[in-house]
């Protein structure tokens, strides 16, 4: 089971949420080239490490939120308040599970 820390509901089974995808800022469709728009829609960074991503708490609070996850360890290091899909990560919130705190590289702030 993978625990996802919803800022409203607390840690929840990932099956209670929907993974929306990597969190990228949306370019202005009237100003970008087709190539840039396609890159925004389809291209992924897919790093082995920290990734900022969007989750939807579909069975809980029904809010979107941004989370910072280490894709190698599934460790969530922190996340901002809901609704802030692309903004800066809130450094005041720091979620680390006790068992794996040594694997958290703390690169979020």
């Amino acid at each position, binding site marked *: 089971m993978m625990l996802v820390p919803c800022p*409203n509901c607390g840690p*929840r089974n990932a099956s*209670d949420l929907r993974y929306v995808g990597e969190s990228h800022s949306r370019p202005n469709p009237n100003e970008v080239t087709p190539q840039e728009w396609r890159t925004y829609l389809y291209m992924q960074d897919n790093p082995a490490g920290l990734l900022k991503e969007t989750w939807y708490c579909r*069975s*809980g*609070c*029904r*809010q979107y939120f941004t989370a910072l996850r280490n894709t190698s360890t599934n460790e969530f290091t922190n996340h901002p308040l809901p609704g802030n899909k692309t903004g800066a990560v809130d450094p005041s919130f720091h979620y680390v599970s006790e068992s794996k705190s040594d694997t958290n590289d703390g690169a979020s702030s």
Partner: protein
Amino acid sequence: MSEFASSVVKTYNETASSSLTLSDLSATTKAIVRAGQGTDAAAGLGAPFGTSRVVDGTLVVGVRPTEWVVLGPAEAVWAFTDAIDNTGHVSKIDFTHSRALFRLTGEDAPKVMEKICSIDWADAMMPDSAVVSASVAKVSCDIIRNDVDGTRSYFIMSDRSSAQYLFDAILDAGEEFKLGVTRA
């Protein structure tokens, strides 16, 4: 507005002696109130997300950060919701007919819930009057702890279209704890 008296589940044999019971309370009047942050309505409802409170014969339930459910007898629910301030982003809807409402009561109720829902039902996480939304047997539900005379009790609210399946799934999970059906 008159009471909707139909049950959403088929007829079951009542179990008179069980200390763990499930009942169908779907006929209960349910209103949904949405109120944006900062509105007088949101402040006046007074049950923040994840909590519930009894007000004027109704149960006010904070089911989402900006959404409440009001349960109770029809007259009390409408008297309460009519009095809510309408200023700003506020809406009130009767959704009695779209949701099913069950009550699971008994000291073993958390053991039944543990089998079909991944929430931590310990007192520290889910005290009396706490509210949580989660999937129960794969059905999205709002669950309200509402103890009856000191005995554990949960309201379980789901979409009406899933009601029969959910009722049977809870009964199945409760079989080993001798869960019985009672009339509301």
